[in-house]
């Protein structure tokens, strides 16, 4: 229970990406709705077939529709698509529940996936029901890509948190991981202006937009006040870095959000683009570093793959961009602040309102917020 809903009482003129405001306002509207009821595969099937036929695919038939596991945010189904003219194609349907651990927009995901098709391996995006008019909830249909997020037999933790890849995988995956990061950061930031806005009014705007977005999320969803989150917000407001160069930020690029083939160790696709936006390249680097695995001898491995120093050095070598230590630290604080907001606030509130098909996972993830809080405290101590 927050004292006020920031998204609902959004003040005109506050510096935040306009399309993010619209997204947060829609999320605020959803909060008052009743218990979320998932559709079964049997209920979904006729709607899905009608939707695909309406996209112009003659004789479309959906076969083998079934739920997929995994994922804390989207309902996911897999199916085989048959049609008169095309070979059978295995597809994935990703649908928004009423709420989830993070508020996102299918329009943004659709646009950025389309843009990235020719740049790096991403799932081929086929159709989107942006408003959920045909499929009851906003949804995206993509081609299915095989692969694993972690080697078989590695139990790990849910959602790839704390993932450390076995040593024999690290180098080969690290090379590709950096290559694809560099590739996405090389894409021109000229999207449809109604979908992605560019924070170029002043050098600090990229950082300010992110801080205003996530502090709004926190204040809107916090169940109890957090002195630590207040302290972190103040430090970030007092230390907004200027962006040297704006790029397409994936915003959830880490082990767990790409698939690879266990035998060849080739990354087959990069997933979960729903938080993508235009921003500072340090943001992705910091997120990768904050999702760390620790080796038996205590070495921190960014995203379970390589040391933070190696990540920065390789990125700089590949792009010619400077990795500025102070800017990186700001985005590390922001990254962990986001994780605390997602776990202790939005995940808990969503589960409490029974608004997701994964309430039991969200209440589980909430507990991770305390470890992220400890990490946030540690980062703030470094600069006090």
């Amino acid at each position, binding site marked *: 229970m927050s004292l006020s809903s920031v998204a609902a009482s959004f003040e005109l003129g506050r510096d935040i990406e306009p399309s993010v405001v619209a997204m947060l306002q829609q999320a605020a509207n959803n909060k008052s709705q009743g218990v979320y009821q998932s559709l079964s595969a049997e209920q979904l099937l006729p709607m899905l077939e009608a939707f695909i036929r309406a996209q112009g695919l003659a004789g479309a038939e959906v076969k083998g529709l079934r*739920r997929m596991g995994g994922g804390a945010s989207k309902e996911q189904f897999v199916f085989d698509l048959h049609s008169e003219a095309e070979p059978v194609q295995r597809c994935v349907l990703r649908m928004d529940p009423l709420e989830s651990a993070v508020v996102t927009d299918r329009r943004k995901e659709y646009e950025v996936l389309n843009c990235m098709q020719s740049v790096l391996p991403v799932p081929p995006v086929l159709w989107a029901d942006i408003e959920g008019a045909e499929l009851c909830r906003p949804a995206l249909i993509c081609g299915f890509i095989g692969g694993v997020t972690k080697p078989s037999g590695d139990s790990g933790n849910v959602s790839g948190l704390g993932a450390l890849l076995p040593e024999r995988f690290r180098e080969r995956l690290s090379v590709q991981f950096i290559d694809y990061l560099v590739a996405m950061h090389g894409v021109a930031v000229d999207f449809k202006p109604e979908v992605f806005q560019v924070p170029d009014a002043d050098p600090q705007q990229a950082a300010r937009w992110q801080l205003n977005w996530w502090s709004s999320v926190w204040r809107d969803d916090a169940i109890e006040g957090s*002195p630590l*989150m207040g302290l972190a917000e*103040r430090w970030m407001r007092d230390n907004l870095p200027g962006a040297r160069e704006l790029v397409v930020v994936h915003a959830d690029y880490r082990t767990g959000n790409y698939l690879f083939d266990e035998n060849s160790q080739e990354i087959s696709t990069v997933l979960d683009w729903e938080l993508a936006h235009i921003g500072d390249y340090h943001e992705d680097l910091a997120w990768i570093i904050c999702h*760390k695995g620790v080796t038996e001898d205590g070495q921190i491995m960014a995203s379970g793959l390589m040391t933070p120093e190696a990540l920065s050095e390789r990125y700089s070598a590949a792009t010619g961009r400077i990795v500025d230590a102070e800017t990186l630290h700001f985005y590390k604080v922001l990254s962990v602040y986001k994780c605390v907001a997602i776990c202790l606030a939005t995940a808990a509130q969503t589960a409490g309102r029974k608004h997701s098909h994964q309430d039991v*996972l969200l209440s589980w993830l909430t507990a991770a917020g305390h470890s992220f809080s400890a990490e946030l*405290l540690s980062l703030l101590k470094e600069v006090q």
Partner: protein
Amino acid sequence: MNPSSALRIDTMMRTLQDTIMPAIRDDQPLAKEQAGLMLGHLAALQQQANREHAVDDYCQALLLTLADEVLRLGAEESSIADLLASLDTARKNGELIALGFHIERILASSDTSAVFKRESSKVAMQYAADHTHMGRAWFLPMGFDGNPKALPTVAELLAE
């Protein structure tokens, strides 16, 4: 009271593990995963049994101490006078939820003196260290903590 919570949790875990989970078909991965999470939640509840009120009391005591410190340090800060007044009222009325939000808002305010920022950082960080220790220790059975051996136990923290 018989049956105890411990016995009820124990039997729920056994039926999940021995009967329900093996009966879930392999083509229902979400159901399998969620049953596994239920088992994890129950195992954590089993380890946390009978201590939730003591932990809440511990956290409330930390928050009240911090409120007093923030009120003392902020006495000369005119820019946050309204927030401090709200905090003072919440403190006097024992409104703990409001108390936490008011402290957060006060600490988030950039429009304060350098001295207040420095001193309030110290007390807030001490609070956060104690609070996150308890949070991590309490939820240790969930397996998120990267360095569990460095943590005191809940019993040790409550005994302090």
